[in-house]
């Protein structure tokens, strides 16, 4: 046994010696790392402050519409959803009152104006809408006030970074994982369409109709449940503000 092992060792040693000194094999190595970072770019053009100044009776009755006040351009390497959410420092329900005009002592003068009084319209339909039972986007045309359907009222939430549930409006995509727009950009042609005609480019109109008296008759949820001020009351004159946030998020 010992002799066999010794013989094997000698043969192995010969093999090592033959490799080390003769047949040419040599190598060098390169490691390649590819870092694919998710790109979600949302460009917004238009003023960051949009003022609605109601100083004429006709403006109270007919409202003020600001056409094409905001343009949204998307470039993304991942599948995405885009939604708008309205909120204020007090939460999802009402505008922030900044200034009171006049005495403000009338008990019928209400300073809690519904956020859903803001109406929006996007220039093209949601390309990947969810199976919403109500309105899946803001594409419905503005029609003469009062509008009680909830077709254009902004989605309101106190938690703007929590995506709307299925059944709420998205500008593009939806809550479910199967409702999304594939990665792409308004910069490059997709199916021959690019720029403002593509599903990566949206123009937003805004409208507020206070009504007379100013009860905001169009204010409603997406299901058409009214949020207008109660009959016999009216909006207290003053300056009010709210925030509209556009959120572009990876589809999940």
């Amino acid at each position, binding site marked *: *046994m*010992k002799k066999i*092992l*010794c013989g*094997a*060792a000698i043969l*192995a*040693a010969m*093999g*090592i010696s033959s*490799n*080390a*000194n*003769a*047949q*040419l*094999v*040599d*190598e*060098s*190595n*390169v*490691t*390649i*790392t*590819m*870092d*694919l*970072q*998710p*790109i979600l*770019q949302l460009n917004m053009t238009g003023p960051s402050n949009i003022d609605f100044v109601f100083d004429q009776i006709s403006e109270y009755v007919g409202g003020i519409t600001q056409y094409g006040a905001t343009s949204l351009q998307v*470039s*993304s*390497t*991942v*599948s995405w959803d885009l939604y708008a959410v309205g909120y204020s420092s007090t939460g999802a329900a009402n505008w922030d009152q900044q200034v009171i005009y006049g005495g403000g002592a009338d008990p019928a003068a209400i300073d809690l104006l519904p956020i859903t009084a803001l109406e929006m319209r996007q220039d093209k339909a949601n390309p990947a809408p969810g199976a919403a039972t109500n309105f899946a986007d803001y594409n419905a045309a503005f029609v003469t006030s009062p509008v009680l359907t909830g077709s254009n009222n902004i989605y309101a939430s106190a938690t703007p970074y929590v995506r709307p549930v299925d059944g709420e409006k998205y500008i593009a995509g939806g809550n479910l*994982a199967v409702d999304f727009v*594939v*990665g*792409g*950009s308004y*910069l*490059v042609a*997709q199916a021959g369409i690019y720029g403002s005609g593509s599903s990566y480019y949206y123009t937003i109109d805004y409208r507020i109709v206070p009504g007379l008296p100013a009860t905001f008759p169009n204010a409603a949820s997406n299901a058409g449940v009214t949020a207008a001020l109660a009959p016999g009351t009216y909006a207290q004159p003053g300056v009010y503000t709210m925030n509209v946030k556009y959120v572009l998020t*990876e*589809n*999940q």
Partner: protein
Amino acid sequence: MRSSRFILIFLFFALFIDCGYSQCGMPPTNNCDQALSDIVLTTPDRIELIFDSFSEYKGGITLNGSSIIRLKVITIPAQPCKWKLSMIVSNNAWGVATDWETMVPYGGAGVGVTPALDLLELRVSNVCNTPINSGLWQQFAPLTGSVIDIINDPFLLTPAGTCNPALQTNGAGSSLTNYNEFSFTIDYRLKPYDPILGFIYRPGRYELHIKFCLQEM
């Protein structure tokens, strides 16, 4: 008994040493001088391509001259020393043999596919244009262990100094004396965008290895 144990341990290590070159394969001949010959990578052994803008995704990233290899092949006197040079791709035995190794995925568990090994494009060249497909973009077959030959002429022995694009210089020589034939520049290109399917790849950090093998033949 004690000496038998020693011999067994010795044999165990001898086996390891013997298998040291197994990935490049052992050559059948013995005409080049292993001790004096060499392959040298003169550039960094890590290459990183970071895609953090939309334009990089769409247009891709090309790294020119990121790897430069220099060879020195010394013959054993009076022997016909002939060699070949090749690249072998590896994904570190990652679970899916066709894909890059995933170091970490980014973002949520959204849809998206892991890049296949053929996403990487390579272009090999030297001044004399002796490599196979010199100056042309090539891809590995999407399988770990796939090979792209740079120099591999099983019939002719073309000596150093020939510098003919129609011939693959594969005789003894060195980049010190015949730089134009014994040095190779490798360009890399990645374009994580499918012209038909668009942005299909899942964000994340991926890795693969390329082994450059110099081998006597």
